[in-house]
């Protein structure tokens, strides 16, 4: 199966600062991928490169096998909802649908109308008068009604209240199932992504810290607690993510596809939020013990 987004050594530099550096990843089709990281980590830059709004400084990126925004046909295959789900404040809901129909060759007018009815949006109401949740739903409706293969969303739910957030994710997941969409969405709200995403990319300080299938990531990370010991005594098959010590006890978060057999440890699993936070906070600690990418790949096999 082809990748929906494939990046090789992708980087973007603004004046002196690298917003994204040496980004290599391949997001498989048919997934809902979560792009997470703290503010300023490079999430929006990666999305802007993937939608063709920015040109890379280094490396390459292909989306559905083609260069982003290289042709009208490529553009028609990608739905994009920018940060904070923007709409045109002075245009009515109806105007937005007409606008969408004119601009998109594959526009599904029936689907768009059905969604607007389902959401109980007043077609004559100006988008500027809608609530935040309704505006987000309108933006999502437009992106889905163009019938893309890939939907890219930049922080779509960050500014919504919990109910609007849930309703947005309900519609998003229902549409994903109905139209067999691939989805890439960025967020810094990991808890909201837990049920939604089956693929994860963690960006910290303009670099990809970890990426992969959510179930395999969760299965291969273990929290080890036991009597105090030196980090250097961990077996080579265990990649250290975070560590903390008291005078008697050591706690390690390790990545290992092999079972943890050392009886000195009590072993616990981690949830998605723990895992993401560990990679974010362990960013500086990990750089000291970081294995070369090739060695890590061998270990994981």
């Amino acid at each position, binding site marked *: 199966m082809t990748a929906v987004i494939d990046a090789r050594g992708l980087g973007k530099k603004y004046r002196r600062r690298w917003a994204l550096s040496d980004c290599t990843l391949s997001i498989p089709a*048919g997934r*809902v991928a979560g792009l997470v990281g703290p503010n300023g980590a490079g999430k929006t830059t990666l999305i802007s490169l993937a939608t063709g709004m920015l040109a890379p400084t280094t490396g390459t990126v292909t989306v559905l096998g083609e260069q982003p925004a290289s042709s009208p046909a490529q553009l028609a295959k990608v739905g994009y909802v920018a940060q904070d789900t923007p709409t045109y404040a002075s245009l009515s809901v109806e105007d937005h649908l007409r606008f969408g129909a004119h601009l998109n060759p594959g526009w599904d007018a029936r689907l768009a109308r059905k969604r607007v009815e389902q959401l109980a949006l007043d077609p004559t109401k100006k988008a500027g008068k809608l609530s935040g949740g309704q505006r987000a739903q309108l933006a999502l409706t437009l992106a889905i009604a163009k019938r893309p293969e890939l939907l890219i969303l930049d922080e779509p739910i960050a500014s919504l209240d919990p109910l609007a957030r849930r309703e947005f994710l309900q519609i998003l*997941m229902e549409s994903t199932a109905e139209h067999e969409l691939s989805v890439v969405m960025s967020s810094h709200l990991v808890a909201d992504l837990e*049920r939604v*995403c089956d693929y994860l990319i963690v960006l910290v300080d303009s670099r990809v810290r970890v990426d992969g299938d959510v179930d395999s990531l969760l299965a291969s990370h273990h929290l080890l607690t036991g009597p105090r010991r030196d980090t250097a005594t961990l077996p080579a098959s265990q990649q250290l993510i975070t560590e903390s010590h008291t005078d008697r006890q050591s706690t390690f978060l390790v990545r290992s596809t092999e079972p943890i057999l050392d009886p000195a440890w009590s072993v616990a699993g981690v949830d998605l939020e723990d895992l993401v936070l560990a990679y974010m906070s362990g960013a500086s600690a990990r750089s000291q013990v970081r294995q070369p990418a090739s060695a890590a790949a061998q270990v994981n096999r």
Partner: protein
Amino acid sequence: MIEFHLDSRSGVAPYLQLIQQVRQALRLGLLREGDQLPTVKDVSGSLAINPNTVLKAYRELEYEGLAAAKPGVGTFVTKTLSDESIAAHQQLAEDLMIWYRKARAAGLDSESIDAIFQRTTRSALQEEAV
């Protein structure tokens, strides 16, 4: 038709929760052979969960021989868990009720009753394993 729900604090993976709820509905007689399970689209939409999670649960149920997918129509229950159903074990339920009343009469609260039940189950499992 049944409706799924998810407990996000249980620590049980969402696809396993879906499987457990189908099995439970079969045991309670809420689902019978021939009944349709909610469509992937409906489950994804109502619970706001990844469609692949629902597909994974349904594939597992197919593998266990409890359900079968009819392409373009949906997933249907193919087996009734009659021998496992609670109705088939009415006597056991009545025995437990007698025990429960004794425990209440002895002044135990529900937490203590739970603790006794779990400890007994564990030591029984241990005996079976030996």
